[in-house]
């Protein structure tokens, strides 16, 4: 009985600590930054049309930027769109 009680106490104490630890983590995250950029990403990611624009990932420039470990590769990759080329329509995924 005593053993059971001890186990119960210990389990509850642990879960309480876990909640506290999680709360602390969240508080620190929010203190670092309150911008929630990933929400925007989540929305865009969900509305994207499968396959469209995938050619970018297959370009040698992209692959080299992503994979290259030797020497000092160009660690900065810029994707430019020409105004009026339909970038807005296609990229935004809808009108």
């Amino acid at each position: 009985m005593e053993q059971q009680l001890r186990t119960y106490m210990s389990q509850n104490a642990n879960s309480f600590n876990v909640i506290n630890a999680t709360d602390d983590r969240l508080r620190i995250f929010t203190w670092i930054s309150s911008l929630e950029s990933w929400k925007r990403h989540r929305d865009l990611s969900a509305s994207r049309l499968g396959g469209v624009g995938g050619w970018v990932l297959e370009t040698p420039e992209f692959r080299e930027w992503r994979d290259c470990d030797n020497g000092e590769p160009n660690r900065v990759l810029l994707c430019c769109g020409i105004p009026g080329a339909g970038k807005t329509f296609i990229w935004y995924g809808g009108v």
Partner: protein
Amino acid sequence: MYSSSLVTDHLCDSKIAPNIGVACLYCDYSGRKEQTPVSMISSLLRQFVTGMPEIPEELTQAFRAAKGHLGGRALKVERIIDIFPKVLKYFDRTFICIDALDEFRVEDRAVFLQLLKKIINKSRNTRLFLTGRLHIRLEIDRQFNRPFTTITIHPTHNDIRQYLTVKLDNDFGDGAMDDELKEEIITTISRKDSEMSVFYRFPIADLH
């Protein structure tokens, strides 16, 4: 925006290294008030720290120290830049993706780029992916003063076909659309992909 979300997802799913960290930001005209160089860099830091099993002790201590002042003083930019490489070091490879740089406040863009430059200069395992209109290239060149690769984004014939197919399949108009008309629209428009500005002017609903 489209390519950024595509690239970000691709990097998150990739297996090029055992422990990959990815953080993304979407610059936006409408969010200019809250999108300052420091808030953006802080957001990147938060995203990487979120991917760590434990918050670095240095940050926990700084949080505790800040708590007692003015309801929790924010991290100073010098401190952020100092902590950043230590956080990035936890990962084997890190990627920072920033979309629509041209929509970031022009008067703050140089500061933002300088902060990004400091971060990547201190972390060899970090790659930076940027998107923006063509003119942004000159600014990056001026601020980074290092070689970088450029890809020009243009919708391919196939992109346009796929896009139109999905849009027309989801068209619940008055029933005037049939398979023949759909094919005619797709073929005609995707053939004229060099005249894409037509899309910008006419929403798809106006095309039939």
